[in-house]
């Protein structure tokens, strides 16, 4: 095959939407290296999903079907994908950078003596080979990473790095692939996924969100931002480390493991802007960042930025807001 193979993700028959962004990336990459793009979807009875993929401009769609792929396990997915890749010999395999992919894709790459170039945000083509861009130091720096050694090469694609609406439609041939899986290959016993508790706080409904990060330093300082939220009539939210430390409840967490919000205004106070946080809020209409580090990645997505000490800026802001409202 020697083209680009995109491994889509589904759970219970529903697509993980990052898959479509990765598929668009796969089409673009294939076009630039002069190869074909194909897609694979794994699970138990994935015929309907494969047919949906067949309406995209792809060479082939592989329906990787097996009863043992019904509930996700790293062992079954790794074995099934390894077998498909050996059969089809793609030169590049792309995955969406989801939690599930993080759980098994590095194993697949290892079986080919390769590494997964993870969480990539773009690529350029050097000759006929891709060079992938990815972030280092929580987004403070970028790096170009070049795959080496014999193909296949493996990469995963960050949420939001490519646009699903750039997908090219067309027709593709569906091919069924039944991997050779046995129950004794699967060492983990997964139970049903669950949610901890009903969310008491729905941040998605808020027009204005004031969100606080590590810059607040201590739990005792939380009231400083609370007061700003109150003055603005905003919901108070936080980045993960604040909730991890128990300074605010988990249900106020914005980011990949918390809520995804798109308010009119998102005010990030003392938040550096690691990607896990950005994916949860970059859809906000207006983003305000207050941070003492002018190189903090949060400024890359901000519409308005103040570089300064939040312990001076936030109280001043409370006063100005009150003045403007009176």
């Amino acid at each position, binding site marked *: 095959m020697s083209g680009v193979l995109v491994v889509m993700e589904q759970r219970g028959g529903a697509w993980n939407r990052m898959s479509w962004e990765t598929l668009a990336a796969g089409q673009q990459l294939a076009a630039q290296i002069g190869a074909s793009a194909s897609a694979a979807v794994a699970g138990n009875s994935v015929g309907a999903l494969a047919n949906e993929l067949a309406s995209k401009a792809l060479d082939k769609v592989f329906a990787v079907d097996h009863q043992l792929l019904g509930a996700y396990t790293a062992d079954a997915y*790794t074995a099934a994908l390894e077998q498909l890749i050996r059969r089809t010999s793609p030169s590049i395999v792309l995955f969406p950078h989801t*939690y599930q992919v*993080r*759980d098994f894709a*590095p*194993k697949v*790459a*290892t079986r080919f003596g*390769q*590494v*997964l*170039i*993870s*969480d990539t945000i773009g690529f350029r083509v050097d000759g006929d080979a891709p*060079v992938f861009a990815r*972030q*280092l*130091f929580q987004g*403070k*720096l*970028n*790096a*170009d*990473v*070049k*795959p*080496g*050694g014999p193909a296949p*090469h493996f990469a995963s694609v960050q949420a939001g790095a490519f646009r699903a609406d750039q997908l090219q439609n067309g027709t593709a041939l569906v091919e069924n692939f039944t991997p050779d899986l046995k129950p004794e290959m699967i*060492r*983990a*016993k*997964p*139970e*049903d*996924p*669950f949610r901890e508790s009903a*969310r008491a706080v729905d941040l998605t409904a808020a027009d204005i969100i004031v969100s606080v990060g*590590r810059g607040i330093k201590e739990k005792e300082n939380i009231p400083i931002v609370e007061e700003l939220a109150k003055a*603005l009539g905003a919901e108070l939210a936080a980045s993960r480390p604040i909730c991890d*430390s128990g300074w605010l409840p988990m249900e106020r967490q914005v980011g990949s493991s918390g809520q995804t919000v798109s308010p*009119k*205004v998102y005010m990030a106070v003392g938040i550096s802007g690691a990607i896990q946080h950005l994916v949860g809020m970059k859809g906000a209409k207006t983003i*305000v*960042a207050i941070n003492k*580090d002018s*190189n903090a990645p949060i*400024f*890359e*997505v901000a*519409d*308005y*930025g*103040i570089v*300064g000490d939040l312990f001076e*800026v936030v109280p001043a*802001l409370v*006063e*100005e*807001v009150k003045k403007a409202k009176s």
Partner: protein
Amino acid sequence: MKIIVSIKQVPVRDSQLRIGSNGRWIQDNDLSFEINEPDAYALEEALQLKEKHGGEVIALCLGPARASQTIREALAKGADRAIHIEEEDLTAFDTLGIAKLLAKAAEAEKPDLILTGLQSDDLGAGQTGVVMAEVLGLPSATIIMAVETAGAGIRVKRELEDGWFQNVQMPLPAVLTIQSGINKLRYATLMGIKKAKTKEIKRVTVAELGGPAAPAATIERVYLPQRTKQTQMLDGSAKEAAAKLVEKLKFEVRVI
């Protein structure tokens, strides 16, 4: 339970990073370093498991001589002993090369459990634990928020996206990658710091573990990210900047 915790030393979080002269990594000779945060949680989890079930905690670290500071801190917090794979230049290794060295060093100890953080704060590849498991032929689970024993094996709570979780049962030995926030980190006590000085740190070289493998992926270039948005920076004193922002919120964004 014999537990190995794989830890990494990384630049402290607020470091002002500068690109190194070869353009392929940062200039790190004038930075301060600390334990990679998710690895600190992995260490804490190992210490708590030992307190519950008995056994031994071994800290495993691949890094230059300066990493011995981070290893000492792990010993001061309660790790029983440590293995330091000493290597000054890690830029010649990719994730597979690093995981192979760690796996080789861990294998000799025949641990029941290997823990590591889910990702590093510097490279952030998020794969070392998973690849170690694959190299050792062990089952693994990632982004773990709870670990309990279940019969001869363990039951772990995996974090999924959007607030979902899943419990998974697995046999031992196994490899787990630990999520930040799984537990509450302890501080080293004075007694712990004192005791750490007498604890064993076994030093091994890359050559003793079979030498470096040819990397399958290499960093070509490190650079500052480009801004995707035109950010209006509001300057002046705190009061001036605050006044400018309120004006924007009132007249441009219209939310006040």
